[in-house]
């Protein structure tokens, strides 16, 4: 089953380093060019689910001046699931790009390998 887009970007946001909740929100906004803006309620529902599934885990907590920042990191199963998703998306894109090129609707783009 395909990953929902918010899940895809949350996992992608955590590939390089652990982030806290607000950090994930900012990273998702940036990675999606502002197209996807997660609200905190939606974000934490997704974080709960992904943690239950073992795709994320809590890396550490920072408590400063009455505020709590909990950092999440991508686990190996989470990274594997994201890699599988990328492979699937890429394979689908290659098929579609090939057909569109034959119709003359798409020019080859070496930057993305399609």
């Amino acid at each position, binding site marked *: 089953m395909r990953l929902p887009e918010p899940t895809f970007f949350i996992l992608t946001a955590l590939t390089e380093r652990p982030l*806290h*909740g*607000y950090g994930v*929100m900012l990273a998702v906004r940036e990675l999606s060019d502002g197209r996807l803006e997660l*609200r*905190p*309620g*939606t*974000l*934490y*529902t997704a974080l*709960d*689910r992904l943690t*239950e*599934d073992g795709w994320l885990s809590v890396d550490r*907590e920072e*408590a400063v001046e*009455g*505020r*709590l*920042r*909990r950092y999440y990191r991508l686990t190996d199963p989470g990274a594997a699931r994201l890699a599988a998703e990328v492979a699937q998306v890429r394979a689908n894109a290659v098929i579609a790009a090939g057909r569109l090129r034959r119709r003359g609707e798409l020019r080859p783009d070496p930057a993305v390998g399609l």
Partner: protein
Amino acid sequence: MTEVDRLHRSYARLLRTYPRWYRRERGLELMTTLLDDAEPGRHRPRWSTVVDLVRGGITTRLRPPRGFIARLITVMVSLTGGLVGSGAAVSLSPYPGPPAATEAIAAAQTATGLPVQDVPGPTVKCFETACQSTPAGDDVVAYDEAPMRVDTTVVRLHPLHQEVAALVAQADARVTAAGWQVDPASRFGATFAAVNDRLGLNLYVSVGTGDTVRTDLILVTVSKRVSAATITAVIAAFFGGLLAGWLVGVWAMQRFVRHGRSRRRDIRDAAVPFLIGAALLISFTFAGVMTDWADGISPEDIQAPLVFLLFWWPITVVLAISGVYGLVALWLAARPEVAGDGRPTERSPASRGAAG
């Protein structure tokens, strides 16, 4: 009060849509993210954030933990809530009692065109599993058992030897001409069911096999119709019970997964007898609905869960005991969380003072 304080207070109110355990574990973290996300000078939450938090809170309250068993148990608790709710609504609704002999005889004569030969017999009080057999010679017998909602008057008529199909077809035509509505799904072989404004009747032709004694029989069972108010109340109670059961099931499972091993074992031990009782109740009702589906659903079928709950005193006792076990499991789940070694779980210093 500063703008940040006002905003904090508004968010704290909104976070009350989340369960208490969630606020205890995640409230401060969520509050931090909300305040980080608020632009400077904001003193009231944005509408989009309000909607998002309310939706998140409701989702958290309604979503059982991951796993097939957790979801199955939640569904079972929910269905049990719905069935007990509808059973309670039936038992609290007015009991109409069986129709008067004159009404039943009039309905039977409308259907068959035959006279009732013998005088009405006494009202039969049903006992436990079954109604007692009717006294010989009485062609009109009322069955009356309020707890079981048995409220029918049966009229027995003795036709001359006729083909069953023709007999049933003629009865069908007679009641239709008299303004009764025949349920098409109930037309099956030697039987059919029909209703008018006040009464419901079921006609069944039994063919005798004796060589010398005429044993053909038409049984016309007449009942007062379940009122629209009762049906509405039972349906509302079913869905209310379904929702309440779902909330309780989700709450219990969310508590269960947060307890230590020894507490979880205790909860499991108490929950198993309850789940066996719940499975009995659900499977009986499901089987009843499937059977009725084949025969044609009637308003009286809404009484099925209550009938099973009171079907036979050993079953009633078993179900009551399983219900007590269910309450014990809930009580154990509600107790303060303990770690695997039995000590009360300490909240992390960072989590203290979480919103709500």
